């Protein structure tokens, strides 16, 4: 038991070669082995969404996936959203519209919204609300999160982010 697996994760376009036990979740591998602590852990059973990251461009719960399963996949975390000092349109909208208070849930909401809007840039407000119901926030009361994502969605439609990731 407790055999280690040597795996390579491609996180935000960069290769990380890690030696992990199979039981290492993707969330823990990102935080503890890659040092990318932007991905947060709340409940560790799929309910809160704080750990949401993109795996092959799809938003998933990184607490419900093992790191060994992400071998060879493209993983994107909140650290990959900004381009240098230029915030992603979603981050800018959260900043400007008070879409966060303590910020614990924010990385999860950002990655959820980024993945959903990349898959379907034309989501209606109703669809956005439904998708945002996936994650929990204990501070904001959600209204400013919804507002931020809807405003960012408009801007992303007006000037789609270049596909350079």
């Amino acid at each position, binding site marked *: *038991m*407790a*055999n280690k*697996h040597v795996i390579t994760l491609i996180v935000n376009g960069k290769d990380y070669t890690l030696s992990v*036990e*199979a*039981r290492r*979740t993707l969330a*823990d591998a990102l935080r503890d082995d890659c040092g990318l602590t932007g991905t947060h852990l709340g409940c*560790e*059973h*799929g309910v809160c*969404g704080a750990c*949401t990251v993109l795996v092959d461009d*799809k*938003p*998933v*719960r990184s*607490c*419900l*996936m*093992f790191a*060994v*399963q992400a071998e060879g996949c493209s993983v994107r975390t909140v650290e990959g959203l900004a381009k240098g000092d230029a915030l992603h349109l979603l981050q800018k909208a959260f900043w400007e519209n008070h879409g966060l208070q303590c910020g614990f849930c924010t990385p999860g909401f950002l990655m*959820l919204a980024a*993945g*959903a809007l990349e898959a379907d840039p034309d989501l209606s407000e109703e669809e956005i609300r*439904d*998708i945002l*119901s*996936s*994650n929990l926030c204990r501070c904001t009361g959600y209204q400013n999160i919804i507002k931020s994502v809807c405003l960012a969605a408009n801007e992303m439609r007006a000037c789609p982010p270049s596909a350079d990731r």
Partner: protein
Amino acid sequence: MKPASFDYIRPGSRAEILAALAAHGDDGKILAGGQSLVAAMNFRLARPEVLIDINGTKDLDYLQPSGDSLAIGALTRHAAFHKPVVDGPLGPLLAKVVRNIAHYPIRQRGTFTGSLAHADPASEWCLVATTLDAEMLIVNAEGERRCRAGDFFKGTFTTAVGAQDLLAEVRLPLLDDGWRSGFYEFSRRAGDFALAMSLAALKLENGRITEARLGVGGVADRAIRLHALENELAGKAPSRELFEDVAASAKAAIKPSEDIHASADYRRDLIRTVVLRALTEAAA
């Protein structure tokens, strides 16, 4: 919490999965979408010795009409059903139901067959499979067998799938254009498991119901198909009165389960409401 240690294998084909299941016996466990199993492992409610990850198996990743049914391979994710997957009424029915399963990110990984193998009493896909009388293909190293939904579900988290079996495929009957469907679920919050839900499908010809399918889920140890009430609907013209009668009979026919979320009495009221709403939507 963190899961206990386990050995991890990732077979590349169906044959390799079956060999691994045979080799590891009761110690081996299939990992599909992981959206139920990994949560249980994180709480150490499940401590499998060996995980057999089927996510690398391309020959289980299909979803296509085959004869008079829709064949759903073991790697078909919930999210595949977000848009109608086949012509005719079945595609929109599945697209309507899937919105009630957990949340968007969970639907990207969780699988249709995984839901059936897991057999949560409040699983939407288990209700669909039971109401539409799905056919399951169960395989192991020795051979394969087919089984209907009525014989497949044995109770909470218990099915005809044994420790060395793979639920390889599920077939849902395609519905021709005469069919219409309604689905209604009541849960506490968006994405939560249902406290009660109902699926109704009615085949209408010249203003009359010629055939009906009616099921209720989330209220007992497995989804329930209401054969007697289907017969009561057949031959009649859809009306508010008829649907009220059938909903009242459904309430009387089922002895609901009780838990911290809902008493049996409350669930009985919910049964009436969800059945009435599902039928009304089907006939609308």
